[in-house]
């Protein structure tokens, strides 16, 4: 295997895991199976260590899935897993299937098994576990009783396996926190994935190295559960995105589409485009003159990728590591969430050495193997998808334009003026309830008191006589940020309002949105003939950003260090460049 994404043998993995130190992120995983799972658990534990986790593992007794799940007092529930893996071997299922005597029941086998799966999930939930459930799909192996007639024979075992896998997928679609892990794609191409001697002698259903391989991909998936996944794909151009060198060969002679081995590059472009549709940000990092590099995106009719697919386009003659640092700065995401594709081993090396966290696959020499190789790495593992993810590209394109602007102005006031910001501050309305609740749930940094509210709570605030509620929406000449701030004030007595919640999205830091909001709040409070606003900072490990917020807004320290008071009688409207709309 290659050096970027090595898949270790069981024994190599044992050694690698031994050498990991300083892992702090806990992960609690339970494994239930109908076969000998000890090697699988050991391999998974080792993979999780290598991935940087501090794993605790639970193994159910041999072939005791249902009894373990039904029993509320079982060790499983005491263990309190974050993730429950159910891994059933089809060979065991086959014995069960053969013990059914009538063809009618055999035909219903997949339904009976589906009911069992549903029942297991219900038991897990009924017994109070909210663990994520990762269910292995069933290995598709034909017992060759009906050969290629299987599709017409409802009581064929192979036919039932296909249907059972479909049942699993259908069930998963609407079952929260239930995921299907497809074993078939990882068995394909694995040499001697089953050791039949060990199967007969020791009930070992897969070879120990197969367990190591499967658990490699499972650990990647768990990594995504823990928030570690790739968000950005950075592409080199010459001989990566197209064949040939645009600066030397010119627009007509680069290979993409029908010319030369252009199909290989087209495949890569199509894949990148689909990733972008899924919400992965595309960036270009190329040693080229910018206008020359952009030409194919604008003028070549067989290019799949177009300029509007690219969030950040960097083409110059600077060091690639520096250019990637720039891309990282604009996107404000971790290097560990970026993938860089470049055909040139020297460039890959420079980037790897300066930015060790970034993933830099060792692209094969022959572009025909680019895609098969990239696919084998499963780089973009994810655990969530929403329609909104698609908008990300345009958001980051806007952000890149802002960054360019800020580098062209000399002072902050000029910059803020030139953004032509327009703000809207209003009380909560019913359309925004879910977004407001989501912000209170998710915001950690710009969050004064970190009070978490449900949609029901937010609706109550909205209808309360005793509260003042605000949402702030912001746009500028580059685009619309949408709803970016939530503020809730509670009337404490005849002359005082207290700031219960003040949250803002970090995307709009340093735009003086706080000033814009406070001016409006003060106006409203004064109109109620009230002269005092009090506030409090509740420190958490993540909200240091706002420890001085109230002080900066001219609140005075109250009796203790984290409570503040603002007397409105002498309040002077605070400067900002946001136009009220």
């Amino acid at each position, binding site marked *: 295997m290659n050096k970027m994404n090595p898949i270790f043998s*069981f*024994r190599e993995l044992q050694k690698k895991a*031994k050498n990991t130190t300083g892992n702090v992120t806990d992960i609690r995983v339970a494994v239930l199976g109908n076969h000998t799972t000890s*090697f699988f658990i050991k391999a998974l534990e080792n993979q999780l260590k290598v991935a940087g986790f501090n794993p605790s593992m639970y193994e159910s007794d041999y072939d005791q899935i249902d009894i373990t799940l039904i029993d509320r007092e079982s060790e499983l529930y005491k263990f309190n897993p974050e993730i429950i893996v159910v891994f059933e071997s089809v060979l065991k299922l086959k014995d069960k299937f053969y013990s059914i005597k009538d063809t009618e029941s055999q035909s219903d086998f997949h339904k009976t098994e589906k009911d069992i799966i549903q029942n297991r999930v219900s038991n897990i939930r009924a017994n109070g576990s909210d663990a994520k459930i990762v269910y292995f799909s069933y290995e598709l192996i034909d017992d060759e009783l009906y050969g290629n007639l299987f599709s017409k024979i409802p009581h064929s075992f192979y036919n039932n396996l296909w249907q059972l896998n479909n049942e699993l997928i259908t069930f998963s679609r609407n079952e929260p926190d239930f995921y299907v892990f497809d074993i078939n794609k990882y068995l394909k191409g694995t040499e001697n994935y089953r050791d*039949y*001697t060990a199967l007969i*002698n020791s009930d070992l259903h897969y*070879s120990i*190295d197969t367990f190591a391989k499967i658990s490699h991909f499972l650990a990647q998936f768990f990594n995504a559960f823990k928030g570690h996944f790739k968000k950005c794909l950075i592409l080199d151009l010459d001989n990566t995105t197209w064949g040939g060198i645009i600066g030397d060969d010119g627009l007509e002679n680069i290979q993409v589409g029908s010319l030369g081995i252009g199909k290989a590059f087209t495949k890569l472009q199509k894949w990148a485009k689909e990733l972008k549709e899924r919400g992965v940000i595309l960036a270009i990092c190329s040693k080229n003159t910018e206008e020359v590099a952009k030409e194919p995106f604008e003028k070549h009719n067989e290019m799949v990728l177009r300029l509007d697919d690219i969030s950040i386009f960097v083409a110059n003659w600077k060091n690639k590591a520096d250019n990637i640092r720039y891309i990282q700065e604009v996107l404000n995401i971790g290097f560990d969430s970026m993938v860089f594709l470049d055909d040139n081993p020297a460039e890959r090396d420079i980037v790897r050495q300066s930015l060790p966290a970034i993933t830099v696959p060792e692209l094969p020499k022959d572009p025909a193997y680019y895609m098969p190789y990239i696919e084998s790495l499963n780089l973009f593992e994810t655990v969530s998808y929403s329609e909104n993810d698609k908008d990300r590209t345009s958001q980051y394109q806007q952000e890149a334009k802002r960054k360019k602007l800020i580098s062209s102005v000399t002072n902050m006031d000029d910059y803020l003026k030139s953004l032509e910001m327009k703000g809207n501050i209003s009380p909560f309305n019913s359309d925004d309830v879910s977004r407001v609740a989501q912000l209170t749930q998710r915001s950690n940094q710009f969050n004064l008191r970190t009070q978490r509210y449900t949609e029901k709570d937010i609706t109550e605030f909205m209808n309360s006589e005793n509260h003042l509620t605000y949402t702030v929406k912001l746009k500028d000449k580059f685009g619309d940020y949408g709803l970016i701030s939530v503020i809730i004030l509670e009337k404490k007595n005849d002359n005082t309002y207290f700031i219960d919640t003040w949250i803002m999205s970090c995307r709009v830091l340093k735009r003086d949105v706080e000033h814009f909001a406070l001016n409006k709040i003060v106006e409203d409070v004064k109109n109620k003939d009230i002269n005092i606003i009090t506030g409090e900072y509740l420190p958490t490990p993540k909200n240091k950003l706002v420890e001085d917020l109230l002080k900066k807004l001219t609140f005075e320290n109250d009796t203790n260090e984290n409570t503040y008071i603002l007397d409105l009688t002498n309040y002077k409207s605070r400067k900002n460049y946001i136009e009220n709309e």
Partner: protein
Amino acid sequence: MSNYITEFETLFRDVLENEDIVLTPETIASDIEEWDSINHIYLVVEIEKHFGIKFSSSEILQWQNVGEMIDSVKAHKEN
């Protein structure tokens, strides 16, 4: 035999993660703490990989001690 016993010893030490293991042809599983039924499966796989051979299922069940395992390996290597 002496060459094989050294190779076996190195392999056992590595797989069972115990540098103090000393093997003789008479060594049996109960002589070595780490050599339980699970690790036995692991050992068999690693011996097969190391010598590039594949034992038959009945062979594996017949071994009484390390010497007999080595005899099996030899038989495979020489055929």
